[in-house]
């Protein structure tokens, strides 16, 4: 039995429905934590901090570009 994609997709989808304002990039990164290399090993502290920092940045909604403003 492994980390098959079905339940992960379902888990992320149900959590994202409850948090509609959270940007897609955050969900992508959280989903990555459940798959592939991140589920094979305990992430070392420095890398954990990097992932957390990235997630915090991803939570900030993208500002409209100058083109968009125009």
């Amino acid at each position, binding site marked *: 039995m492994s980390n098959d994609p079905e339940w992960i997709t379902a888990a992320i989808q*149900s959590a994202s429905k409850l948090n509609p304002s959270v940007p897609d990039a955050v969900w992508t990164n959280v989903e990555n934590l459940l798959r592939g290399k991140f589920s094979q*090993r305990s992430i070392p502290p420095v890398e954990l*901090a990097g992932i*957390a920092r990235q997630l*915090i940045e991803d939570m*900030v909604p993208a500002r409209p570009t100058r083109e968009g403003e125009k």
Partner: protein
Amino acid sequence: MRIKTISLSWFRGAADPISMEPDCKSMVVYGVNGSGKSSFVDAIEYVLSEGRIGHLAHEYSGKKLENAVPNTHKPQGKKTTLSVKFCDGSEVNTEIRSDGSTKTSGSIGPWDYRRTVLRQGEVVEFIQNTKGGKYSALLPLFGLQPMEVAAENLRQVAKNVENLSQLEARKAVLAQANLKRRAAFGAATDDQIVKKIAVLHEKYCSEKNSTKDAIPRCKESVIAIDAKIAQLSADQARHIALRSVGNVDLKSDIGTVRATILKLAGELDPLISHKLAVLQPAETLLGKLPDEGEVECPACGRLIGADKFRDHVRFELERLREIRETFNARNAAMGCLCDDVKILKLSISKPEVKPWREEAARGELADCLDYLSTLNADALRTACNEPDLQGIEKKLLPLIVAADSATAEAPASVKELLDDKQTVEAAKAAIESKGQAADVARADALAHLIRAVEQTTREQIRLRSNAVIAEISEDIKKMWSILHPGEAIEDICLYLPKDADKAIDIGLKFHGKLLDSPRLTLSEGYRNSLGLCIFLAMARREAVHDRPVILDDVVVSLDRNHRGMIVQLLGEEFAGRQILLMTHDRDWYTELRQQLDEASWTFKTLLPYESPKIGIRWSHKTTTFDDARAQMKERPDSAGNDARKIMDVELALIAERLQIKLPYLRFEKNDRRSAYDFLMRLVADAKKCFQVRTGTDFVAHEKAVETLSLADKLLISWANRASHSFDLTSSEASKLIEACEKAIECFKCSTCRKYVWFTEASGAEWLQCHCGEIRWRYGKG
């Protein structure tokens, strides 16, 4: 994928190359303690676990087991190597260098050590382990370890989000900012505040249309108001400065600090008593930790393993979150008080306030001014107790009141200027804190959603564990019923305790009563039997892969009856699997040799270990007489005694096979017959029942009768001396062992090498070897 050979050279107990050669069949290896059986098991673990051997990992073995893996007496120039060859032609060859590094060719594939090898120590360790320990041991076998790793990673990421965002501290600061906003604007909305800013901006910066954003408007307004203030007369400037003294809200600061100190004390008192109650048993607990695998947490009363203690402490910290928030709020309130005292100091020291200050110094406020000048405002940020608060109340509040009264005489235009400046500054702080609040809310939401996904992952683990556990529990029950038929221990199952995460335990019904753990009632032998069933149930889940099952001395604490059932269990549940079974139990080995089918089983015995330079050695015989022979020189009486003990078991089994009738003895004496009893009867029956073919006819097997008679004679005379008077000589012991060995051997055909009970001959009551050269007519003795 079966094992063909395991070859060792200067690895563990091995010296010059030695091979164990099951040759794709199942195998029973017998050897006394220390003869080197486990060296072969170590080799398998070394290969499966990439250079790790669990029982050798300790402080003296070196990081790469370089002190433990090579033979301690390996000569210079010799290499430590191991090789495992498989029946499909693949092989793994490893050379282990003196620093523990390895050079390996080939691969064993994705075998799971825990599902392949079971050692005696591991059975005990598993059963005695904590619920958490069992969870850690079984989860990888359920295939759920990646999910557990992912859940733990999520938990750690959530914690990092909270720490990096300084969530708790910033929440406390925001709470303070909100208090100030309510004081300045009441229940006004953000829009209403922005409108107020727009009006004031229009009032002071009407010529500027540079921006519509609130914060720049606030800044421009403050600059414009300050410019107007700079143009005021000295008297008006004094009013302005005094107003800033009067505006310092020390009273509210003191109230907040006092309230948070009180709240903290309210939560702290029970916490301190609680923690004290924890510390005392914890001291006792620490002394016990090395000896006990599971201890009761003094904080919550749950049983917990030492290795899980750190995790548990983290969990307790989570539980203390509320008090940590109060603690942070108290610190934030002390920070505000500190800032306001500094503002007060700065405002009163301004030159425009000098006349007012001098007048105050001559009156009742002299003490207050002295107190303010000597007060260390920065110290209040880290430590502020009730006497400090009372001092501030008594000495500084009168100064503020006096300054506030003095500003009452200020002209209306000055008052308006001051009110507007104050409003703009409060509006700026409110708008800025709104941005902060958004940051904090985002970080908070992020931490919550990561924890929610972690929770979902854990629910999935639980769901899947339950499914696997239900499946395995059926197998465990079945295997238990084979090992312990009709016994009052039933319904054995693995289960996930409802009151704990990351835990698995074993439930059972003991004489009709449901129990949460086998440790409440089961004896050591029963617990080990249970551990064996669990391992075999796990190993059985891999049946499709046809991987071997290796059992290293796992029946030590089982009695003869239960040990005997293992053959039935292996026969029923693992008929198609290769089993490598190591044992130091001579009687059991003899039983297995007699009971298991030679077509699919091989039997080998190891010689007792002599020295590291000689290393592990195989006996050339499948019987265990070499154990006795090894003692011939030094302790001939022990050698003779051992020969008799071996004969006790061998002859009992032969008598059973040949259905030898023995006179009934009362009670348990029936089960305690000795070699003498069996041999006497066998000699008598052999004369009538044991036949050998000569040409087309069968005649009495006189040679066998002679051989048995000689063994009988020597056992009575010399084995008795070995047991009672201890004066047997080496040559006598040697002759005795040889006679016994030949007596057993005489039941084996010299042509086909099968025993006389190999098969039933055509016609009733005849047993014969494979080729029919020798036969035994049972029931006619």
